[in-house]
C-alpha cells in the first residue's frame, strides 16, 4: 500500500527537476515574471509618485528627469502607473488561472476516470462551450451583466475551462488503464484518492503547462477587455487600461501606451516560454 500511496510531489519529478540545469530562456522568463510579481506586490510603494495623483495643468508630457516615462493627459506619472498596474494586470489572470485549473482538473479527472454517462454529459456541455466564440460571448456577457472585473474573471474562467477539461480527460483515460492505477483499484482505494493522489501527479506536467497558457490567455483577454473599457473602472492603474486611455496621446507621449503594451507582451511571452520549458522538463524528468 505504501508503494502506491506515498507518491512524492509530481511523482518525484520536482525533485529530479531540481537536479537538472535550467536553460537560459527559462531563467530569463522566470526572472521577468518574478520581477513583475515583485512590482505587483510592492509597486505602489516603490513608485516615485502616487499613481492616481493628477496634474491636469501639466497634461501629457514626454519623459523627463522628473517623470522618467512622462505623464498622461491627466498629468499622472506613467512609470508609477506601470509599476502599480502590475498588480491588477497579473492578479486577475492568476485568479482566472486558478479557477480554470481547479475546475478543469476536477471535472477532467472525473470525466476521464468515471466515463459512462458522467463523461457523456460533461463532454456534450464542453462541446457546446467550445463552440461559442469566446471574446464575443465575453463582451456580450460583461455588457449585459453591467461590466465589472468580477464578471469578466468568472466568464473567462468558464470559457477557458472546457478546452482544459478535454486535455485532462484524455490523459486521465490513458493513465487509468495503467498498472499502477489498476493496482490501486485492486487494493480498494477510493476513486477520489486514486484520481487526486495517483493519477493527478502523473498528468501534472500538462496541467502546469496548461495553467501557464491560461495565465497568458487571461492576461491578454483581460487587457483586451480593459482596452474595450468594460473591465476595470477608469483611472485604475492597469496595463490594458493604460493602452486604451493613452493611445490618443501618441503625438504627445507615445511611451504612455507603448510601455504598458510592451509589458503585456513581455509578461505573456515569459509565461509562455516558462510553461513550455516546464512542460518539457517535467516530462523529460518522468
Amino acid at each position, binding site marked *: 500500500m505504501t508503494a502506491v500511496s506515498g507518491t512524492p510531489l509530481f511523482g518525484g519529478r520536482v525533485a529530479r527537476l531540481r537536479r537538472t540545469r535550467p536553460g537560459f530562456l527559462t531563467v530569463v522568463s522566470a526572472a521577468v515574471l518574478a520581477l513583475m510579481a515583485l512590482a505587483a506586490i510592492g509597486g505602489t510603494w516603490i513608485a516615485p509618485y502616487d499613481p*492616481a495623483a*493628477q496634474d*491636469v*495643468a501639466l497634461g501629457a508630457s514626454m519623459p523627463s528627469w522628473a517623470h522618467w516615462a512622462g505623464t498622461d493627459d491627466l498629468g499622472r506619472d506613467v512609470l508609477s502607473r506601470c509599476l502599480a498596474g502590475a498588480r491588477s494586470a497579473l492578479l486577475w489572470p492568476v485568479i482566472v488561472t486558478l479557477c480554470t485549473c481547479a475546475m478543469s482538473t476536477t471535472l477532467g479527472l472525473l470525466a476521464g476516470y468515471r466515463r459512462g454517462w458522467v463523461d457523456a454529459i460533461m463532454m456534450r456541455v464542453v462541446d457546446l462551450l467550445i463552440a461559442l466564440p469566446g471574446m464575443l460571448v465575453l463582451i456580450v456577457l460583461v455588457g449585459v451583466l453591467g461590466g465589472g472585473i468580477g464578471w469578466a474573471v468568472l466568464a473567462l474562467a468558464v470559457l477557458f475551462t472546457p478546452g482544459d477539461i478535454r486535455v485532462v480527460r484524455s490523459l486521465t483515460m490513458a493513465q487509468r488503464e495503467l498498472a499502477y492505477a489498476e493496482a490501486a483499484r485492486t487494493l480498494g482505494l477510493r476513486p477520489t484518492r486514486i484520481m487526486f493522489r495517483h493519477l493527478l501527479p502523473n498528468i501534472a506536467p500538462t496541467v502546469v503547462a496548461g495553467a501557464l497558457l491560461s495565465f497568458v490567455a487571461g492576461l491578454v483577454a483581460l487587457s483586451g477587455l480593459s482596452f474595450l*473599457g*468594460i473591465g476595470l*473602472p*477608469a483611472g485604475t492603474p492597469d496595463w490594458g487600461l493604460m493602452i486604451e486611455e493613452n493611445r*490618443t496621446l501618441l503625438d504627445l507621449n507615445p511611451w504612455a501606451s507603448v510601455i504598458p503594451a510592451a509589458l503585456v507582451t513581455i509578461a505573456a511571452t515569459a509565461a509562455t516560454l516558462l510553461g513550455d520549458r516546464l512542460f518539457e522538463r517535467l516530462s523529460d524528468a518522468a
Partner: protein
Amino acid sequence: MTSATALPRVALAALLLLSAGCAGSRQDRADTLRWALSEVPNSLDIAHGFNNPSTIVQFAVLDCMVTLGKKGEVLPGVAESWTHPDPLTYVFTLREGVKFSDGSPLTAEDAAYSLSRHVDPKVASQAASYVTMVKKVEATGPRTVTVTLSRPNQAFLPTAALAWQIVPKKLAEAHPADLGSPEVGTLGTGPFKVAKFSLTEGVTLERNPLYWGPKPALRKIELRTITDPETLRLAVSSGEADGTADVRPSEARKWTSLRDVTTTFYPADNIAFLSLAVNQGPLKDVHVRRAIAHAVDRAALVQLMTGGHGGQADLFLPKPQLTALYGAALPALPTYAYDVEAAKAELAKSAYPRGFTLATPYDSGGENVKAMQAVAADLAKIGIMLELKPLPSEKYITQRMDHEDLAVQMANLYYSTPDPSEVLPDLLSRASAKPQGFNFSGYGTAALDAGLDDVGRLEGEARRKAITKVLAEVAEQVPYLPLFHNESAIAVNKRFTTDVGTWTIDILSAVRPAGA
C-alpha cells in the same frame, strides 16, 4: 499606312485616350466628396434617426419648411413666406414648382402631413418632443399650410427648421414605422437624392437635378463610417476620405497639424455639465451640491476637454445663445469659483460634513471618461468619493434615459436651434424629469415650469428677464453645474472649401470643390 508609321500613331492615340480618361476621372474626383462619419446613420427619417450621423444625411436630401441663416435667424425654406396673424397661428406659403426628386410635385398636403406625423403614435417619432406645442396642422390652400399652436411658443419656427422635414405624404403614410430605413429609403426635395443606403456599406448621394435652389456644387457624395477616431483622422490625413465633421475638440492639435487638410472651428451650440440628481441621497442637500460646484476645477476641465477650443461655462445655456441674448454683458448670477476650502466649508454646512461615497456609472466608450476621472479626483479632495462604474455605451445610454443610477452624470449636449426654449425645458421641466426625458437632475417645481412657459411665451425684454430668472434659480440651487462650452470643427481636404457656422443645418451642401 505602313506598319512602321502606324505604330507610333496608335501609341499616341492610346496615350491621348488614356489622358482623356484620366482627366475625366480627375473631374469625377473633383466633384465627388467622400465623407467620413464616426457613427452609422441608422435612418434617413428624423422620426427614427434623430442623431448626428443620420441628420447630416437627412438635411442634404430633405428640405425643411424653413431654414436658419448664419446668425440663427429663420429664413424661407420650402415655404417662401409665412405670416403670424396671432400668437397661436402661423400660415406658410409654399414655393411654386417644387418637386420631389422622383418628379412628383410637392403639395400642401405633403407639407402638412410631414409635421403632423410626428405626433402620430404609429410613427413613434423621436422628434415628437419638438412639436408638443403644435395643436393642429392643415393644408388650407393649394400652397398654404396653417399651423395652430396650443400655446404661444417662440421656439416653434426655429424647431421647424430642424424637425419639419418634408416627405411625400403617400410614402410616409405607407411606412409610418420604417420610412428612412435602408429597405424603404426616403424621397425629398433637397439638393441631393439617395442613390444607395446600407447600414454596412454607407450612403451614396447624387445631385438632385430637380432641386429648386442653386445647383449643388458637388455631383456625388459618398459617406462611410469610421468609428475609431484615430483611424478617422488617418483616413482624412491620407486622402482616403475628403472630410469629416466628427473632430473632437480635445484632439484639435492633431487635426490642425495635418497637411493638405483645412480644419475650421466655429462655436458650437452646446453645453457640457454635471447633473446632480437632487432626489437621491446626499445630493438632496443644496450645500452638498454647492460644495461640488466649488470643488470641481472647471478651468482644468476646459484644458483637458477642449484643447484650447472652448471656455469655462458659468451660466446654464450654450454660449451662442447667451451671446444672442445678452451680448457681452452677462447677468451677474451666483458662480462657484474653484476653491477647495470654500467647498469644504459648504460641505460642513450639510448633513455630510465628512463626505460620502456615490456609485457613478459612466459610458466607457464615451468622450467623457477622462473628464469623469478628473472630477472624481477633485471631489475626493473634499471627501466625496465617486466609485466610477464602467458601462458599455448602449447599456449606459439606456440606463441614463431610464433615469436609473443618475447620481452624478456628465453630459455634453449639442442643440440645433438658437432658441433657449429648446434647451431649458429639455433640462429643467418636470415633464422631462421622467424616463426618456433629459432632465437628469430631476429638479423641477411648479414655479419653474411656469417660468419655462414664460420663456416660450414672452418676447423681447420680458423674455430676457424670464430667462435670467430661470438661470438664476439654476445657479442658486445647482441641480446642474455648467462646465464648459466648446467649438465644433469640420476638417476637409484642401481640394474642397467649406462655409460652415454654428447654425449651418445642411453641412454637406456647404462643402464645395476648391475654386468652384
